[in-house]
């Protein structure tokens, strides 16, 4: 199980367009991907409703996990979507 901790840097947090892009990217991979906030249960990263309900805001840390071949690349892409470096 690969995991990545990142601080959400998009202004609107993991909502609106960043959330849609994040879920679309997660949905493109065949791997199981989850996203969680500190101390909370992880949710399916392919579920836009679950990701929105997570309510990860700008400045909050999230943990993205994926399992299987290519998990690192998937995490790299997803992390990039919520951090400033790629924005």
């Amino acid at each position, binding site marked *: 199980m690969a995991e990545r901790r990142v601080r959400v840097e998009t202004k609107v947090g993991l909502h609106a*367009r960043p959330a849609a892009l994040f879920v679309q990217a997660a949905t493109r991979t065949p791997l199981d991907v989850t996203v969680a906030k500190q101390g909370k249960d992880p949710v399916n990263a392919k579920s836009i409703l679950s990701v929105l309900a997570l309510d990860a805001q700008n400045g909050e840390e999230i943990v993205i996990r994926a399992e299987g071949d290519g998990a690192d690349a998937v995490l790299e892409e997803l992390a990039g979507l919520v951090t400033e470096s790629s924005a």
Partner: protein
Amino acid sequence: MPDVLRGTGVSPGVAAGPVRTMSGAVPEPPAGRRSAGDAAAERARALAALDSVGADLEERGARAGGEAREVLAAQAMMARDPGLAGVVTDRIDEGLSAPRAVYEAFNTFRAALARAGEYMAARVADLDDIRDRAVAILLGVAAPGVPDSDEPFVLVARDLAPADTALLDPAKVLAFVTRDGGPTSHTAILARAMGVPAIVACGDCMDLGDGTMVLVDGTSGEVRPDPTEQELAAAQAEAEARAAVLGAGTGPGATADGHRVPLLANIGGPKDIEAALSCGAEGVGLFRTEFLFLGRTTAPSEEEQESVYRAVLEAFPSVVVRTLDAGADKPLGFLPPPDDEPNPALGERGLRLFHSHPGVLTGQLRALARAAEGLDVRLQVMAPMVTDAEETRSFVAACRAAGLSRAGVMIEIPAAALRAGDLAAEADFFSLGTNDLAQYAFAADRQISGLARFQDPWQPALLDLVALAAGAAGAAGKDCGVCGEAAADPALGCVLTGLGVTSLSMSARALPRVRAALAAHTLDQCRKAAEAARRATDADGARTAARAELPGLDPLGL
């Protein structure tokens, strides 16, 4: 029912027809366990309904294009959400019917989203809409949204969203009447683009029963239920006059005494070229370029931009391009997120955005200059949200550096209008964005329907600002166009001309009516109408006073 219902007229003209109200609430499926026992069939039924809603939303988006496409695609993702599907199947396995399971599953997420704070209010409304569509399919009842009708009708609704109107058959809608919304709401812009009357902020309109005959006057803002034969006959005559005007609409824009007022189209991309040409646009007065930039995580290359710009520049003899107008409310995925802005309308948007990110602007200007190379087109480039002479100077310098010879600024901030002389000394031309100019002059958000009267472009204070800007441009020998929706109102088009505005740019469909209104009056009549409007103390008074000076409007049904 009162004799007359009143609202704000936002698209001129008169029409009569039966009311069709946008259908109300889809019933809540009854609670309790289902009687029959086939869980597998019930699961398949539920998931098929959700998928069909997703497909429908996607298709509406594809047909609507532009910003609506992205909004509806996001809603389609919600309908096809795997987490939602999981909850639905769990509920069915517990013994619920498909409609009840879908209803409860949506409400589970609805509660979670409602707790999730500020960004979520709109999403909760979206979610309710998607739920209702899916439940309507499963219950076999009418879907919420625009009604089906074989005969043309007057569409009455609380408010209209792009999703509601994306599939509207323009031949079926005689007029719009909404309870909410303002002059720059989606309903108003759509109605003007379609050339049908519309009234917004009509408080009692939802009380009109389906099938009630109504007479809608989009100029006065009056809805008359059960009109008399005489009133209907007058409306019919008006509709015929309007059709004649539309049929006769060709040639360049000019007043009756030959004062030229170029009539131009507002476009949002190459997809709008055809409509602009078929309505006789003499050129493009506002080419919005946001569609190239919004909704992407990497900036469009200069080559990609160049080919899109070229498609537009090849189609018209003159084109005014507005550089990218983004901000905190329309963030760019490829730039760092803007600082927290409690009021994005007053933030780092429009030209201001490029203080921190000059590369985006210089790239766009270079792409524009290259796109015009070798073409016989008068390309003019303008910046949105320009405040003062210094900003004007730096924008004009950036244009010159890119090889663009005609650089102008939009006047949409009151400070820019008040000191228009300073800006006119720097810029080659002005274009007045009346929607934002009203928002800033009246301190009234364009999106708030309760403040609709402040968005009325007939407000004398707004006319004063237009007069200041047009006067300063005229004194400096520079052009001053209007590219806000105000230009699409035939009477106001005459008034703007009288105020010294030199070109009018609008939704393509509005061009024939404005052309006809101008052709029916002399420049002197337009000036007198402008003076009369400015002597009024409110928008209605200005409208009435101006129309009294423009006797050619009524015979044309305008």
